[in-house]
């Protein structure tokens, strides 16, 4: 396989995410056992791993949705575990989180879904300004005509796009994608991959992309990190990880090719 992705404008002097020695367990199940990861400004890191390996847990810990057992997480220069609620919320405004199932608010139409984070977080915005922001992000994801529709009327791919648009409306510096292509056909998956790259270019974001889809990882990631048994056992470019002699990494890649 040939890596066709474009190397982005990565600033290796500026770290936007730094995770050191991260441990997380649920009941008696140890999910993450000493994770270290650094993401640089402008970089896309694809985290690969099989289902249940703790990939989603990793990004939920970054935004404080889950509490780690032990760790040192620094995001945009702030230590996440040391922040007060108010400080954590300020940090969250700088991070976009795209959920696996989009997590659009069922009771709101697309306009309300997109306007909601804006009206709740930015005071004194006029209706005109809110509409302008909504239209701008809908244009960015190519769904300007869906503004009055309900989430239930959209296809899986459209829902993913709207989910991404909802995070973009707050102009995040970091994007966290949780399985952006899961449950989508190859053509729609490819469109989402292009959208991830377009978002990075247009909004100058750094990203962590959680996926078990090799095409997605290859197309969107500047660097891969392979999560096996609660630890990253392989990091590098797609080719480096693909050519690894590690049995578990090879097993994962073979399994995906068969799939």
């Amino acid at each position: 396989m040939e890596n066709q992705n474009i190397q982005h404008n990565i600033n290796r002097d500026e770290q936007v995410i730094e995770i050191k020695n991260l441990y997380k367990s649920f009941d008696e199940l140890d999910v993450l056992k000493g994770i270290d990861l650094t993401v640089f400004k402008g970089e896309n890191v694809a985290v690969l791993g099989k289902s249940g390996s703790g990939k989603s847990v990793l990004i939920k810990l970054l935004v404080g949705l889950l509490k780690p057992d032990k760790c040192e997480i620094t995001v945009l220069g702030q230590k996440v575990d040391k922040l007060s609620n108010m400080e954590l919320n300020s940090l969250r405004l700088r991070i976009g989180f795209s959920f696996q199932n989009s997590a659009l608010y069922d009771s709101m139409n697309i306009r309300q879904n997109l306007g909601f984070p804006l009206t709740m977080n930015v005071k004194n915005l006029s209706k005109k300004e809110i509409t302008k922001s909504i239209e701008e992000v809908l244009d960015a994801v190519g769904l300007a005509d869906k503004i009055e529709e309900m989430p239930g009327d959209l296809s899986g791919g459209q829902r993913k796009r709207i989910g991404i648009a909802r995070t973009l409306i707050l102009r995040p510096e970091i994007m966290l994608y949780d399985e952006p292509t899961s449950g989508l056909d190859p053509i729609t998956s490819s469109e989402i991959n292009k959208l991830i790259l377009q978002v990075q270019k247009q909004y100058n974001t750094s990203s962590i992309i959680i996926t078990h889809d090799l095409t997605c990882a290859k197309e969107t990631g500047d660097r891969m990190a392979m999560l096996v048994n609660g630890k990253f056992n392989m990091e590098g470019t797609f080719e480096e990880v693909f050519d690894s002699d590690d049995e578990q990494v090879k097993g994962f890649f073979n399994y995906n090719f068969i799939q």
Partner: protein
Amino acid sequence: MINISSGKYILSKGLDESLLGVHKSYRFVIEYFKQAFKPPFHVSEVINQCFEIGLRSVTLITLTGFIIGVVFTKQSRPSLEDFGASSWLPSLIGLAIIKALGPLVTAIICAGKVGSSIGAELASMKVTEQIDAMEVSAINPYKYLVVTRVTATTISVPILSLYCIVMGLLGSYVNVRAEEATSFITFFENSFSSILFLDISTSLVKSVVYGFTIGIVGCYKGFNASQGTRGVGRAANRAVVMAMFLIFIEEIIIVQISNWIRFF
């Protein structure tokens, strides 16, 4: 606090989880009082929820209140006639509907209709990560979802109780009017003749407590739902069962307190 997630249990898994459940629900209730009086107040969402709750229950309460009035009158009349006390009928109906039936029937209807709906709605938001989505957008989901709904039920249930009382008395009047020539004003004057300020206050306090209970139980069950769509059904079911159970316990306690106050 017991740390279940660490896998170390103080007593046993079941007991620790039960104690943790009590502790969690206590904190959930306390959190309401901490957040309800702090801005932002999301007034439009409270009004929206009041409208939803009121509108959703009004038809059933109209029908139930009216029927209770008719049936209670029909069933009480022969017994009172046996004692030659049929003139006390409006007073008896007034006492029964204002003091007990109105608030209790309204609470039970709302627990079934509103409590289950809140439980199911929040549970489905929880399992589809919509609550997490609010949190990562720096929106306080407790404040936006729980405080607004609990405030709305606390406001709406007393209003609906009052409406149920009016419908019950109206149903009773229709039945009384069919049997004897009593004017509307005389009937209502007689209905309220034995009612004290304490009775009305107790009735109002009961409705407020029931409204709060329905809202907080529905929200708690929804907010703590798990296990996908199965959890949604379970949350709705448990919201109703738990709310009804608590309503009956509260009924006993409030009536007892009211009797003590009356005694002194």
